[in-house]
């Protein structure tokens, strides 16, 4: 006769420590939280100041004010014209683009990971118990809205075209005609990296080719998918570099516009 043994008890090992990790797992979320807080504070301040966003001699416009559509925008800065009269100061001048740019970054798969870990601590690091009683992830409102990421992507492509136009404008000399300076160069590097960041987006990877089942039937899209995948593997790095270049571009234009120092000119 075979002996029937009891089924093993369905209980997990009871270990009270929230983690037994001995490495510095708390370091990365702390760094991410600090950097994101600094960046958001900086951007909020400059977006609401309503000054020092445009250098008239060289046609430098900071990306934080592009497109400048409020009635307050100085002439020349409003590349798409002014769409409103005077707006109350709680509304930034680039009110038509900033919500999309912000929404794009907030719903970005990389930033989601970053802030879920750094701020929401779900989880702060792998195999570290999270502090929440309940967890529903992105299954319900509001986080289910993250599924709309691709629409922000479409909008940001339009905004990137506008940013590119701003850089072309910035090839402007002080005596009129063509010219360029350090500001132009910074804006150019920034916009190239912004394109790389936007095109490395997971939604872009899906739309351009990832959604196909049959790559061999679509050689062109397969080729594009491969290129985007290469960029996509660097999405996190691009997310951080573009935060850096955005801040640098804005700060440089801010300081030149406020006459703290003058632009270093290479030509005219």
């Amino acid at each position: 006769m075979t002996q029937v043994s009891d089924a093993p008890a369905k209980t997990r090992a009871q270990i009270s420590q929230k983690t037994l990790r001995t490495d510095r797992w708390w370091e990365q979320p702390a760094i991410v939280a600090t950097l994101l807080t600094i960046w958001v504070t900086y951007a909020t301040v400059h977006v609401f100041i309503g000054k020092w966003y445009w250098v008239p001699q060289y046609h430098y416009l900071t990306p934080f004010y592009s497109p400048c559509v409020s009635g307050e925008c100085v002439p020349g800065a409003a590349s798409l014209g002014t769409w409103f009269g005077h707006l109350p100061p709680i509304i930034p001048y680039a009110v038509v683009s900033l919500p999309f740019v912000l929404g794009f970054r907030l719903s970005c798969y990389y930033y989601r990971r970053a802030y879920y870990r750094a701020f929401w601590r779900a989880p702060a690091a792998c195999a570290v118990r999270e502090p929440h009683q309940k967890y529903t992830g992105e299954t319900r409102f509001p986080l289910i809205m993250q599924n709309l990421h691709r629409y922000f992507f479409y909008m940001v492509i339009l905004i990137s075209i506008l940013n590119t136009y701003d850089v072309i404008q910035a090839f402007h000399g002080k005596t009129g005609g063509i010219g360029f300076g350090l500001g132009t160069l910074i804006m150019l590097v920034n916009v190239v990296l912004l394109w790389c960041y936007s095109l490395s987006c997971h939604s872009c990877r899906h739309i351009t080719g990832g959604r196909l089942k049959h790559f061999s039937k679509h050689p062109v899209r397969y080729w594009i998918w491969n290129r985007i995948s290469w960029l996509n593997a660097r999405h996190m790095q691009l997310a951080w570099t573009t935060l850096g270049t955005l801040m640098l571009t804005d700060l440089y234009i801010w300081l030149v516009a406020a006459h703290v120092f003058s632009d270093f000119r290479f030509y005219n």
Partner: protein
Amino acid sequence: MSYKAALRVWRGDHGRGDLADYAVEVNEGEVVLDVLHRLQATQAGDLAIRWNCKAGKCGSCSMEINGRPRLACMTRMSTFTEDEVLTITPLRTFPVIRDLVTDVSFNYAKARQIPSFTPDPSVGLGEFRMQQADVERSQEFRKCIECYLCQNTCHVIRDHAENENAFAGPRFLMRVAELEMHPADTADRRDIAQDDFGLGFCNITKCCTEVCPEHIKITDNALIPLKERVAGRRYDPLVWLGSKIARRPRSTGTPKVPDNRH
């Protein structure tokens, strides 16, 4: 050069247990599994460990070493300093059978719920041709050794056992993604990915990717592409509007495989 390593090993069953201290000899070039075997041979004859290949290919020796989910046979002792205390516990997400051995049947139950490969019946046996480009994506997922380290680490069930019913875990969402990317497959698992396998619970924090010993990019190459596929079907306002205007009833996807083992 050999030395004595300080080990704290979780011993117990039925979920109850404690960390027991041992000092075990370590020789050059050894991995954690070697040291556990020496412990078993010299001091704790009744220590339960599961292992098989000792080559990182069978996925049996998953455990947590200093709090990090890893394969004991692929964790070199040289990654730790000689005076470091090694704390070794069973996987935390699965019920413990004894000592370092857990009952991973949760994973097999989840695997059975996934509708298997469904080729077009009109294509005869041996008629279908695939190019390398078509299989590349699935080949990465096929490297999986079913160690379930990813399932164990995912906070959705690790920290919230109440989600076990609603969430299949990264390993099986990856399986769904693999089938959805298969050029000869005709089933549509996007609805069940969201409704029955809980893709929405995943918040893409990438711990599955971080612990995978096969370095499969689970999150980037399987989970996010699957989320995008689901978004296209379920959360696309244009698609929704179109189907409202055309009054087309929404096609229902393939249902999950019912569990008839009880």
